[in-house]
């Protein structure tokens, strides 16, 4: 049985209170959380070191202005202890980055909610925020899948954080506005929160989460069905990725793509007329800019097994390509080759760095 900490305030306030407690008692010297940028209502992640800065913090807001895994890479490893509030998929993304030596969990206390999903940035910016979040929380409290969230969020089975020190119970919490339950998953969590409130034995409500998981699984099936290419093979892919303008925004915001110089932006992919001879000879036509589909094929072979399905790439795509849905599907297939779940365990290596001697015997005689 895990330890559980309960407060008599709403979830958002309780998390801010906890962060303020950690800062004031100098258990941490900084906190990373979502906050309101200014009065315009836009959001950003902020690393805050003074407790009055927390006045603008909205740690549980269901929006992802950037995948925090990238930000965490910038601020870790850290000598001074910090607390971070991130979504489960951001945490998984960060774990994948750590496996690639792009950060560290040392001195980091991780808080993560059971996630009801994230509202696409576009929707959040354009629509009335009050109604949007009101409807969102109404459905989350009831254990339903909110209408407004990202397609990949609806289909996400990993809404319970895998490696968080502290889990904030959100999904299916009827009394979210008046009560908040923190599940303390690690000894570090117990010692850090000492003095904040009374601790008892308790855990997440397995039945509620299980019911919710079933709904997500159903959505996932529907999503994968809906993105099924009209035809198999390259032609089907051209249907979907043909709209790509080659901005590489999807890899820029990807929590997994960490390369400072992407192969596709390097001299390796310099184009010149002589290269296209055969294509012109075959087809009599050449698509420009070239290699937009090739770029996606390359990403699939490089990082799909680590895809956490956060949906950030779909969010930023100017051509409305369902990048995340396709990568989630392909990623599950490639990860399944190695019985791998991205972001599950920080001590596990990425699949292409380890091997078993007795596997894939059919490859190479």
């Amino acid at each position: 049985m895990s330890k559980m900490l309960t407060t008599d305030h709403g979830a958002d306030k309780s998390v801010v209170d906890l962060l303020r407690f950690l800062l004031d008692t100098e258990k941490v010297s900084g906190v990373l959380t979502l906050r309101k940028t200014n009065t315009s209502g836009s959001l950003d992640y902020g690393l805050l070191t003074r407790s009055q800065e927390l006045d603008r913090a909205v740690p549980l807001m269901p929006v992802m202005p950037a995948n925090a895994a990238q930000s965490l890479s910038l601020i870790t490893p850290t000598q001074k202890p910090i607390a971070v509030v991130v979504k489960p998929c951001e945490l998984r993304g960060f774990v994948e980055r750590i496996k690639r030596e792009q950060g560290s969990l040392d001195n980091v206390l991780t808080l993560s909610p059971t996630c009801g999903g994230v509202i696409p940035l576009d929707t959040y910016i354009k629509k009335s925020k009050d109604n949007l979040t009101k409807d969102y929380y109404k459905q989350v409290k009831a254990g339903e899948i909110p209408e407004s969230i990202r397609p990949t969020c609806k289909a996400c089975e990993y809404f319970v954080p895998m490696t968080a020190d502290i889990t904030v119970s959100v999904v299916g919490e009827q009394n979210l506005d008046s009560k908040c339950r923190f599940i303390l998953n690690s000894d570090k969590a117990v010692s850090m929160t000492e003095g904040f409130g009374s601790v008892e034995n308790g855990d997440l409500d397995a039945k509620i989460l299980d019911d919710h998981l079933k709904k997500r699984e159903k959505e996932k099936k529907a999503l994968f069905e809906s993105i099924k290419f009209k035809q198999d093979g390259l032609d089907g892919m051209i249907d979907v990725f043909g709209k790509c303008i080659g901005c590489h925004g999807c890899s820029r915001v990807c929590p997994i793509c960490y390369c400072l110089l992407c192969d596709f932006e390097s001299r390796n992919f310099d184009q010149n007329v002589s290269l296209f001879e055969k294509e012109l000879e075959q087809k009599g036509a050449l698509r420009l800019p070239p290699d937009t589909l090739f770029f996606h094929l390359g990403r699939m072979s490089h990082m799909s097994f680590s895809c956490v399905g956060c949906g950030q790439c779909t969010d930023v795509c100017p051509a409305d390509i369902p990048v995340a849905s396709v990568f989630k599907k392909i990623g599950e297939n490639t990860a399944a080759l190695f019985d791998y779940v991205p972001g599950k365990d920080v001590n596990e290596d990425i699949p292409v760095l380890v091997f078993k001697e007795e596997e894939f015997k059919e490859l190479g005689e």
Partner: protein
Amino acid sequence: MQEKDKKDWQPKILAILCNWCSYAGADLAGVSRIQYPPNIRVLRVPCSGRVDPMFIMKSLQNGFDGVLVSGCHPGDCHYLSGNYNARRKFAVLKPLLEYIGIETERVQFSWVSAGEGERFAEVVTKVTNDIRKVGPAKRLVKGVVSW
């Protein structure tokens, strides 16, 4: 393609060989004067683990009709485990290649040791014949390899 050209067509195959086993195997085939089809061009890499999946995709794009990747036998890698890692990368690449319609014959993996000159010749003969059967590459191809 004209009937006549088809007959004259020779596949262009890139053989990516690891320095310690397969490259030495190819060398042995050479000094032993074992005959094999002249359709491969050899790219020497320190280890099959060096082969990025994109090397293979890019070769197909640049006009090779096929790619053969060959390293030390599993367990015999000069760097102990490079070929096992290579095998995992190919495991990711292979379904992807199949999906986009690259015939399985076009991209092949094999293990050839430094002492297996004869086997190297056999592998090259087999790969060349396989690719000859499936014909010139059509998918992804942009360029023409200068031969």
